[in-house]
């Protein structure tokens, strides 16, 4: 029981850290960035290439991945999303999907379809024993990183000037630009942060579940998106809670109901939650003026 809870939390933290990226971008740019999962995959490959082929130390490989993804995120935003700033959300959604296909196929051409076994970059963290229960270093590292990232993000958006600018942009782009906030710059910054997070998420995802393929990011991306909606999309603590709950529910569904139908159960729980709370657990109520 407790074992399952721990593996659930460990799986959930991976979802959570991906969901954080989703939620950041959604909260500020109001778009569903379906390419987020693929940026994670690129981050994974970046860390793999430097860490495994070039034998860079872990911190440097991760840093490199973060830089690659940050640059990638900003470039994608500039080239693909910025021209659509005033277009319908559906047009942006389809563009994001196009970007997702693009990244997957680029990865296929560069790294081929052969999977890579990702070296565990968190192996330096020791096992922790609590009574009978053993927690692997990877799980511990994932959970801790996730919490640190969430706290840092919350502090950033609440306390810093740039973070406040982000919140203003998320409330009202027009008003924000009237107040002298550089809206485009702020959205770019959001993508930079979201994509940098994706690199970290990629390293954590691949450390915990080490097969790296061009499609590696796709399903965790969708699951994390689900998690973000579960927690209330746009809400940073919501993404965290949503991710962890999703992981725990998935593991419990496998353990106590059916390994075959675990996905169906996860999604069914999501639907029930949304029917009871239409904007997710911590989501802001949608308000409409009359």
């Amino acid at each position, binding site marked *: 029981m407790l*074992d*399952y809870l721990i*593996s659930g939390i*460990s*799986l959930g933290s991976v979802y959570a850290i991906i969901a954080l990226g989703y939620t950041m971008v959604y909260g500020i740019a109001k778009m569903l960035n379906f390419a987020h999962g693929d940026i994670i995959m690129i981050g994974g490959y970046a860390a*793999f290439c430097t860490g*495994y082929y070039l034998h860079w130390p872990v911190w440097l490989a991760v840093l490199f991945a973060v830089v690659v993804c940050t640059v990638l995120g900003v470039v994608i935003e500039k080239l693909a999303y910025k021209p659509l700033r005033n277009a319908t959300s559906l047009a942006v959604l389809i563009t994001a999907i196009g970007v997702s296909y693009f990244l997957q*196929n680029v990865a*296929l051409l560069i790294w*081929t*379809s*052969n*999977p*890579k*076994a*990702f*070296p565990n970059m968190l192996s330096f963290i020791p096992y922790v024993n609590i009574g009978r229960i*053993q927690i*692997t270093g990877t799980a511990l590292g994932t959970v801790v990183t996730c919490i640190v990232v969430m706290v840092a993000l919350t502090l950033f958006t609440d306390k810093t000037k740039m973070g406040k600018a982000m919140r203003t942009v998320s409330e009202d782009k027009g008003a924000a630009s009237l107040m002298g906030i550089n809206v485009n710059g702020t959205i770019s910054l959001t993508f930079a942060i979201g994509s940098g997070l994706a690199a970290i998420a990629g390293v954590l995802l691949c450390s*915990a*579940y*080490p*097969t790296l*393929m*061009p*499609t590696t990011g796709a*399903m*965790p991306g969708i*699951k994390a998106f689900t998690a973000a909606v579960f927690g209330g999309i746009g809400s940073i603590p919501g993404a965290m809670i949503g991710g962890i709950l999703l992981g725990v529910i*998935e*593991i419990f569904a*496998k*353990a106590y109901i059916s*390994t*075959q139908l*675990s*996905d169906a159960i996860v999604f069914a729980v999501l639907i029930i939650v949304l029917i009871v709370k239409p904007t997710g657990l911590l989501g802001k109520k949608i308000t409409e003026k009359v």
Partner: protein
Amino acid sequence: MMKKVLSVLVAGVMALSIVACGATNDASANTGADANNNTTADGSLTGTLKLGMIGPLTGGAALYGNAVDHGVQIAVEEINALGTGFQIDYQAEDDEHDAEKSVNAYNQLKDWGAQVIAGTVTTTPCIAVSAEAYSDRMFMLTPSASSTDVTANKDNMFQLCFSDPNQGSASAKYIAENNLATDVAIIYNNSDAYSSGIYQTFVDAAAEVGLNIVSTTTFTDDTQNDFSVQLADIQQSGAELVFLPIYYQAASLIFQQADQIGLDVKWFGVDGMDGILSLEGFDTSLAEGVMLLTPFAADATDDLTVNFVTKFEEKFGETPIQFAADGYDCPYAIYRALEYYAANNGGLDVTDMSNEELCEILISVFTDPGFSCDGVTGLAMSWNAAGEVNKAPKAVVIENGVYVGL
């Protein structure tokens, strides 16, 4: 053990010749179509055969399609380099592991003028394409689509790989006969036709040979990351051996997570497990002691395998997996069959022959009890009328990071 004797024998036979194969039987084959205008005087095989291949070259299953494609490429190059007057014109089409795209690919190949199809690589598309090929009278030899549905009721469809029942029951029998275990656990992929196909036949055979299945758990392509629940179930069930009718990517995750929780069991895989040792970045010590039934092991030392693996590594910079080997054997099997026909029917020129004619010829040869053929995935492969291959699976165990025959 018998297997060892066999492999020694194999090496001996191998040494004789790679090329001379099949045509040892002089019993005149009952050939369906009479291709008078295509015969050559001296019983030799000439002309250019248009060979099409269909498989997932992009998308989630691209690994398998590309492996087969690469294997076929090497075989085609070798055959074309023999200088016998017989050439193969080869074209591969992508199907993204999708039945609809696969039928499109098949039609593309038809428009290109394909006379014979090596494919398709994956099961579901293969069933769809084989139905088309059946009504078109196009001969198909799939390197790797293993379900019995692929060949069922289609006389033009042959498999180069073991069929699912073959693998499932062979595994169950092997485990029972060698007293590897009585309490067996299974993890399989219930969103995958290959995996659940083998699972079903394993379960049936297990009941016959007296194996106890104490734990059955599944995963899907979408939940292929965390196996803690499955492994905990196995731990509680007290299984001695875990049967993994799955591909090696998932298996690598299972081994790693089993190691983390200290699960100590025997592992038994199927041909999809092959490739785990060449998985880039994989700690092969985790796979230590894993047994698998596979017709191909890249580390085997017979000439055929060594030749193939060397060329493959040279050309593509990676170790061939099972699928590549299956792909490699396909053009050879077709080549040998045509050669066999030519030898027994006073020669054959395949240039511009219709696919219908070739289909009847190849069906007649493949179902001819006198025809057999060697390849890297098996020696003296022969086929029954149902289209299933008859070859001996090799049982191997991973020791010190390499396959060792059992």
